[in-house]
């Protein structure tokens, strides 16, 4: 039915009063209000007062809100600024994690470190190959003029050695110097080791590094310590 088929409401004297037609009730109803204004109908048929609407609006915020504000718009702006992975990226990440999980523990890192300093800091690992892992070897070596001989303490260069100490056993009174370095050293070329001086050389145990020595003038003996 429509309002044209119903009677409007009247006051105590039968005069028409402010009213509205309610199609659900199929009748005119009095328009009510307060504080000098009629009540307004909101969507869903709820009557909302301005205080409630104000609260709603405050929670919602304004388009000028910064993404740090705790309003709905602020939070949405904050979310919009996030770098969210796509579903494809997440699926790829899941596949990687699953592959790692399906391995018996994380056993290996196959990728080389990128170029750069890659400074890790001081790390000491049990079984570290840069630390001595076997008993030292000591010995005396005789060096003769004109021959650059390899220096070591035992029967041959100690395998995986990490350090070698050489002492020139020539007396101060003799003053026989020697030179050490690569195989091409001569009595004029090479690092000088004065009488009674000691030099400590450190090595990468994974790289065999022969060291040669040659006296400058006379036969000289050296004391060698390898570890």
């Amino acid at each position, binding site marked *: 039915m429509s309002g044209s088929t119903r009677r409007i409401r009247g006051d105590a004297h039968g005069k028409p009063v402010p009213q509205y037609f309610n199609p659900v009730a199929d009748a005119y109803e009095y328009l009510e209000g307060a504080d000098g204004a009629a009540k307004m109908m909101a969507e869903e048929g709820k009557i909302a007062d301005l205080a409630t609407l104000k609260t709603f609006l405050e929670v919602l915020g304004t388009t000028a809100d910064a993404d740090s504000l705790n309003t709905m718009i602020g939070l949405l702006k904050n979310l919009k600024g996030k770098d969210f992975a796509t579903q494809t990226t997440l699926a790829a990440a899941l596949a990687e994690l699953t592959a790692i999980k399906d391995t018996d523990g994380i056993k290996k890192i196959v990728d080389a470190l990128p170029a750069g300093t890659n400074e890790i800091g001081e790390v000491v690992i049990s079984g570290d190959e840069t630390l001595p892992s076997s008993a030292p070897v000591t010995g005396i070596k005789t060096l003769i003029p004109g021959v650059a001989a*390899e220096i070591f303490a035992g029967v041959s260069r100690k395998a995986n050695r990490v350090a070698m100490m050489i002492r020139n056993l020539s007396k101060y009174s003799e003053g026989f110097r020697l030179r050490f370095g690569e195989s091409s050293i001569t009595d004029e070329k090479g690092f000088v080791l004065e009488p009674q001086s000691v030099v400590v050389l450190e090595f990468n145990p994974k790289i065999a590094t022969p060291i040669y020595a040659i006296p400058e003038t006379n036969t000289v003996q050296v004391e060698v310590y390898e570890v």
Partner: protein
Amino acid sequence: MKKTITAQKVSKSGDALEQLKRTASIQIDFSGEGVGLLAETSVGGGEEEALKYAPVFERDLRENYKELFPQEEPKEPIEEVGEKI
């Protein structure tokens, strides 16, 4: 005792640095003397330098590992026969 000297071969077309860094190796095996000692070293240069150094290397090994080599027994003093005048 067996001494083996192996000089590094450098091709004629090799550069000067390669020629300069050549080495010769010396191997000494004392098993012929009943001593299980095999030693190896190298010298800068070629066979000539290796031949010169080999006896020195051998002497050092005998000194550094003298406990492995049989020691010569000290000779007993020969008693003189007859009365001293």
